């Protein structure tokens, strides 16, 4: 045993001994976590930057990462609302000065972006680090997380093109976050004993209702939307005091089908986030793929390998991420389904 290994063993033994002493009530339950284990899992970053690893990343590097791993869902400028709510937009230089986003009041119709809502840059850093990219969370390096964070603020015209974000200057950058003064905790909904802000009474007779004291229906489902949630007759029990109203023939909000059906499998495997049957989304449509490889006997195995390992170039520059978690037979099922026209179940 090397000297360092011996030293480590001594530390571990000392820790377990102290833990055994500390632990009187439930002997044999649990153990002390090793420092490496705590480091591996304790990845959270607080607004005071406790937990932020040392490092840096440039806007330029961020753009590179963004275009490879983020833009396909979030749009080249972080503006896309095709899959997720937009990240960039709605903030002004005046907001950056003031720390409050004016559009939250002046433009109530505007979809709220990440930059409009975010009050702490730590939230952004922490979330990218733990949960992005969408289909490969926790795969970015520390440099890449700094870089993408910097690039998002650059897209929002908050940081210049030449900026390099680091643990040293992130506190200064926090002072530029547009909605940093936009949160309040003055309300009664945090504490179980908190005071409510809305009051009603137990009035029982001739109670005030509408503006004129009269009961008026002010909102209802418009006729054209009657079947927007499918046929309600098929969403209610067939016995009892009521039946579901027949609202549509055909278009039914289906209960989740078994994922052994290829269409459901494509959905469950998140294929449909980037592909559709008959139109280009991020990647090519299933019909385009079927058309290109028609009659190509080697295509099924090539396409299966592409789904498994990822690929780029055949349909443009946006790469398809690998799907290492999918079973081979699932991939083969999907390939057959796509090449046969991707008929919905």
């Amino acid at each position: 045993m090397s000297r360092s290994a011996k030293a480590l063993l001594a530390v571990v033994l000392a820790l377990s001994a102290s833990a055994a002493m500390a632990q009187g009530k439930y002997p044999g339950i649990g153990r002390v976590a090793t420092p490496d284990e705590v480091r591996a899992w304790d990845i959270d970053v607080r607004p005071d930057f406790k937990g932020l690893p040392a490092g840096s990343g440039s806007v330029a590097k961020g753009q590179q990462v963004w275009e490879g791993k983020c833009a396909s869902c979030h749009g080249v400028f972080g503006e896309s609302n095709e899959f997720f709510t937009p990240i960039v937009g709605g903030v002004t230089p005046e907001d950056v000065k003031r720390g409050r986003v004016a559009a939250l009041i002046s433009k109530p119709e505007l979809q709220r972006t990440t930059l409009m809502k975010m009050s702490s840059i730590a939230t952004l850093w922490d979330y990218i680090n733990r949960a992005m990219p969408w289909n490969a969370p926790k795969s970015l390096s520390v440099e890449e997380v700094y870089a993408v964070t910097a690039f998002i603020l650059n897209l929002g015209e908050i940081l210049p093109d030449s900026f390099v974000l680091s643990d040293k200057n992130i506190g200064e950058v926090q002072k530029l976050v547009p909605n940093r003064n936009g949160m309040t905790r003055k309300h009664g909904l945090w504490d179980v004993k908190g005071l409510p802000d809305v009051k009603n009474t137990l009035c029982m007779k001739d109670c005030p209702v509408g503006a004129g004291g009269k009961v008026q229906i002010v909102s209802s489902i418009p006729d054209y939307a009657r079947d927007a949630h499918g046929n309600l007759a098929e969403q209610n029990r067939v016995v009892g005091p009521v039946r579901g109203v027949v609202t549509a023939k055909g278009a039914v909000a289906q209960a989740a089908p078994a994922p052994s059906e290829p269409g459901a499998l494509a959905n469950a495997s998140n294929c449909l986030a980037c592909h559709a049957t008959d139109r280009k989304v991020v990647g090519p449509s299933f019909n385009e793929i079927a058309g290109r490889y028609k009659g190509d006997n080697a295509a099924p195995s090539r396409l299966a390998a592409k789904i498994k390992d990822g690929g780029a170039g055949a349909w443009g520059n946006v790469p398809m991420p690998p799907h290492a978690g999918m079973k081979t037979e699932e991939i083969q099922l999907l390939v057959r389904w796509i090449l046969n026209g991707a008929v919905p179940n």
Partner: protein
Amino acid sequence: MRPCLLFMSADQTGRRPGRVMRAPENFLGPADIAAVKAGRRDFLRNSLLAASAALAGAAAPLRAADGEAAILNPSAFSTSLGQPVAARAYGLPSKYEQNLARRESPGLTRVSAASVSFAPLQGFFGIITPSGLHFERHHQGWQDIDPAQHRLMVNGLVKSARVYTMDDLMRLPSVSRMHFIECGANSGMEWGNVAVPTVQYTHGMLSCCEFTGVPLSVLLDDCGFDRKNGKYVLAEGGDGAGLTRTIAMDRALDDVLVAWAMNGEMLRPENGYPLRLVVPGVQGVSWVKWLRRLEVGDQPWFAREEAMHYIDLMPDGLHRQFTSIQECKSVITSPSGGQKLIDKGYYSITGLAWSGRGKIRRVDVSLDGGRNWKQARLETPVLEKCLTRFNIPWVWDGGPAILQSRAQDSTGYVQPQSRQLRAVRGTRSIYHNNAIQSWGLADTGEVSNVQVG
């Protein structure tokens, strides 16, 4: 509004308007009916005899039977051998119940791994949600985690950071309690106007189960947490989202559970198998699924789901942060939007009430859009931070009505009207809409989602 829509009190059952019974199933075709009308008085009797004989495959009875085919004719299920035990090793609902299923609201989200499926409240009885119909909300898809590989770590302001296996946790002294779980955004689509047709979509991010686990306080004690500086606990999921939420220490030490079981079996994967946090009274996002880590700290964390989402926009442009408690709320589940009453006559109006601050004290029901109210009966049990079922008898005379329920909890707080909520919070809050729900009943018997003002 017609004034003749009356509640029934227990001692005044009234006369039930006769319901027109259907003829025995399809004995008579159009030609036969014409024949009966034309005066062939013995026709019906003969026809019934023939039908009974054909169905029974037996000798024709000596005289015409008078009654329903469902009774008079032997059925296949009472005259044949049934299925053996364990034909379904894990039982399933009847095939006649398949309409009651979790469903997405079309157009609400664009990526189904970061979406919601709503529980079919319109079909539930009592207060317990069947495990397979519990609503779902995932932030990065659900996982089915091997329990032998799952670990729970407790670190931060503790004497020693510790790791527990599922074996460890399930040896600890457990408790079982029933609690509701409601997404903070439940009814969020209805802040400004009516948007969805049924109670499944207006209120279906709500479920209530019996949970079994170890009190969080037991684990925090076992790790020797810092009682002076430890003001908050961070809970973190083991899924791709690594979802994190801050919980106040006084909550954490009160009734929070680290749970592995739901309704007598292990948690379903969609609900966090093998381990989730149960934070009674607090919005569902804090009930972290696939729980892998708890950290004790002296400040809140501002995780994404408490600093970018689950923040409530107020009319002054400020977002309320850390809005956790689900305030007192109720809804009539039957009859409710998208349903049609089968006939005039007697009904038991029924629904659910709940409060994140305690027990339900009373529920009132109105049939005239909130002008006049009558107290409903609470079904037992009535438990802390748990759904309570209420009902009230009613005879429908065929006229229009607007049905509402209004709950009061043990703190005295009364569930508000939409206009009272909007006066304080505007219409862009998304979260924490606990307004009184209105269901409009037309004289056709059809019920629809309406808002009154």
